[in-house]
């Protein structure tokens, strides 16, 4: 029995080690067929990026809004499929595309040679530029050149990590000003507002959309460094690429794009280039003229979406507690599904290491050391992107459960090992002397006693796991912490949301401590002093 279960552990270990050796499947051009048969197109984006791209609606935070949400809807209409949003970390979108979790990236991804190398890009759906912004009352910054002016300390400019703005600004600054990279689009604007940064460089849609939210900021000079937002598809998916290009051309010609962009207040003169590209049918790799029939103004006239003035205090609590509570549900589900697995696995590993056959001990200690010695996030992400490569397709949700369970099994096994070792040898001997097999003696005599000893550290770990579920956002799960970041990024009501999130975590973990204490007291009564 022991060895059979031990074998499972070895198998799980084997799952992690040889990952680097397996080559990815060759890309097959089948996305469009898959989309058409499935009746849905999965598009990837990160709602944490905030407005005006993809963000929780101000009116109902459970709904997504943004110009890219509207674009996806239109594309769905033209492809006669249902668009389905897939949440993921922005910088991980190419991985998600490669591993087939999404069909396209539609999330403010700029056209860059590096990206075009590994993915296929459509013609642009938006022409952006970089807007420098500073405080209205800051007399030192009136131009780009002012950033490089000699001063101590050097001027600090905030940008979005990995964006074209970062590349451009770093090159512009050189040694003369400091570039600070942030993970959220509006983080930098807030930091400029509070004076921590001197300026920020934003893509024009963000600067326009959030102008009302940050009234103390002003644009400096005209936007610079024009660039293109494009949709990326997996390399080689030419059929899908052409279908998307046709949809974009159609939307340019029939005025859909203009209607959408006006709705979010991001239509500007630069977008004329879109019509130009569509008319000439030529844009970098794309050269097929589209003869789609022009339908005028397909878009219904919609209410303009604008960033409201910032919500504060009780209004935030009232409007967002519902959705935070809902996300807390995901946190609970993740913990309650993964922890029992971790406990079971950990127990088997501990038993295998203590009582198993000699050949089992080395692989099991390697398993434990490997999982304890590497970050959970890395393991989760590895599982997430590695499993599809070897043809195992499990939903992100189960990837998260599995990842958490495997990681925590290493910690649980160490706790159990200590607990099992604390049981006097005489207990096993007494059980064996009664004719029990070792397995039976473990199951009936040794393990139940060890269980009682390990309750406090195990509960401790459960609470830790409970909070570690936040790492699952790397595998596209939106739980409490992720929801907090998303909302905080789109509303800037960080302090209120933070408080609510903390209270929710506490409300969930504290009862668990209480229950654990009660169980401990009850079982403690039966323990020999």
């Amino acid at each position, binding site marked *: 029995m022991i060895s059979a279960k031990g074998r499972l552990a070895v198998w799980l270990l084997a799952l992690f080690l040889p990952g680097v050796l397996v080559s990815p499947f060759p890309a097959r051009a089948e996305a469009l067929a898959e989309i058409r048969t499935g009746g849905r197109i999965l598009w990837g984006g990160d709602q944490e990026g905030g407005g005006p791209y993809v963000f929780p609606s101000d009116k109902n935070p459970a709904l997504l809004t943004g110009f890219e949400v509207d674009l996806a809807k239109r594309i769905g209409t033209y492809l006669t499929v249902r668009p389905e949003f897939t949440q993921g970390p922005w910088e991980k979108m190419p991985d998600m595309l490669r591993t087939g979790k999404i069909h396209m990236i539609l999330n403010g991804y700029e056209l860059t040679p590096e990206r075009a190398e590994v993915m296929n890009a459509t013609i642009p759906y938006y022409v952006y530029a970089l807007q420098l912004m500073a405080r209205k009352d800051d007399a030192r910054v009136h131009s780009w050149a002012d950033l490089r002016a000699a001063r101590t300390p050097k001027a600090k400019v905030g940008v979005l990590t990995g964006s074209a703005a970062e590349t451009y600004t770093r090159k512009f600054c050189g040694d003369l000003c400091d570039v600070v990279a942030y993970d959220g689009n509006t983080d930098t604007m807030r930091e400029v507002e509070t004076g921590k940064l001197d300026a920020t460089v934003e893509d024009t849609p963000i600067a326009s959309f959030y102008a009302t939210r940050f009234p103390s900021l002003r644009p400096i000079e005209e936007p610079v460094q024009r660039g293109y937002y494009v949709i990326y598809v997996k390399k080689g998916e030419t059929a899908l690429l052409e279908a998307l290009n046709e949809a974009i051309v159609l939307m340019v010609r029939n005025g859909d794009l203009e209607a959408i962009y006006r709705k979010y207040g991001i239509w500007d003169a630069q977008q004329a280039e879109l019509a130009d590209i569509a008319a000439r049918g030529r844009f970098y790799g794309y050269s097929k003229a589209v003869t789609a029939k022009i339908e005028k103004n397909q878009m219904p006239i919609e209410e303009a979406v604008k960033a409201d003035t910032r919500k504060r205090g009780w209004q935030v609590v009232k409007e967002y507690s519902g959705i935070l509570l809902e996300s807390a549900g995901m946190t609970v589900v993740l913990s309650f599904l993964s922890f029992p697995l971790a406990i079971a696995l950990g127990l088997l590993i501990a038993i295998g290491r203590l009582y198993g056959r000699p050949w089992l001990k080395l692989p099991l200690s390697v398993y434990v050391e490997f999982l304890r010695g590497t970050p959970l996030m890395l393991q989760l992400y590895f599982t997430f992107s590695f499993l599809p490569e070897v043809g195992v397709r499990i939903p992100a949700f189960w990837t998260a459960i599995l990842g958490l369970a495997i990681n925590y099994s290493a910690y649980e096994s160490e706790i159990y090992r200590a607990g099992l070792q604390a049981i006097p040898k*005489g207990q096993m*001997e*007494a059980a064996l002397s*009664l*004719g*029990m097999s070792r397995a039976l003696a473990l199951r009936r005599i040794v393990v139940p*006693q060890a269980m009682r000893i390990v309750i406090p550290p195990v509960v401790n770990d459960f609470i830790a796991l409970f909070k570690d579920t936040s790492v699952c956002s790397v595998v596209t799960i939106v739980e409490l912490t992720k929801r907090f970041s998303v909302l905080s990024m789109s509303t800037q009501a960080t302090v209120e949301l933070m408080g609510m999130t903390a209270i929710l975590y506490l409300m969930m973990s504290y009862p668990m401590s209480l229950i654990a204490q009660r169980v401990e007291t009850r079982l403690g009564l*039966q*323990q*020999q002093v």
Partner: protein
Amino acid sequence: MIAITGLVKRYGQSEILKGISFEVQKGEVHAVIGPSGGGKSTFLRCVNGLEPFQSGEVRIGSNVLTPSTNGRSDARLLEAVRRQVGFVFQQFNLFPHLTVLENLIEAPVQVLKLKRSEAVERATTLLARVGLAQKHDAYPRDLSGGQQQRVAIARALVMEPAAILFDEPTSALDPVMAGEVLSLMEDLARDGQTMIVVTHSMSFARNVAGQVHVFADGHDVENGPPSKLFEDPQHPTTRSFLSQSAKEGGPPPVPAPAPAPAK
């Protein structure tokens, strides 16, 4: 029914048992006495397979343990041996997470696959016999040492073993509690229970055992019926051990024998 021949047990370099041969017939009570470190407990643990040994064999009915007997691959053999030979420990080793009754019925239900009701019936009878009928639902920690050891004996008996091995069952007890346990063991002996008892109680060895063995330095230096062994010890080790324990252990049962003339 138990036959041990040429048993040798080594821990690394040191030899604990240096060729012990030993035979027990049904209904016999054998006491093993001797100075500490003489290998008495180790011997007993070899008999029910808790300790592997390096040479010789242990035959229990039709089952034979040999130096090549392996805890894993021969698990079935060991379990069969242990079902026939009960073991009572110096430290009782009751299961602290189970009540007295649960301690008793655990093995009958799990190992012998008795019905629970049947096991409870057996256990209840035995608890009455060891004088602890009232302690069904007590946990081991609520019992005195003597009571715990009586439960432990009942736990061995409930399996209805052919023989029971006692490993210094009264050493961890004060004299009063030791008395309770010894009189219970005397009872069992009278009822014809086959036993091997490693003990420091000279009175038990003298009055209850049919055969007494003196173990010293890994050898069974002298054995025989208590009358002969206590009245007329032959081996110098026996003599010095008996006079030693007479000094320590209250009034000597017999006057210390005069040193035998050198042969």
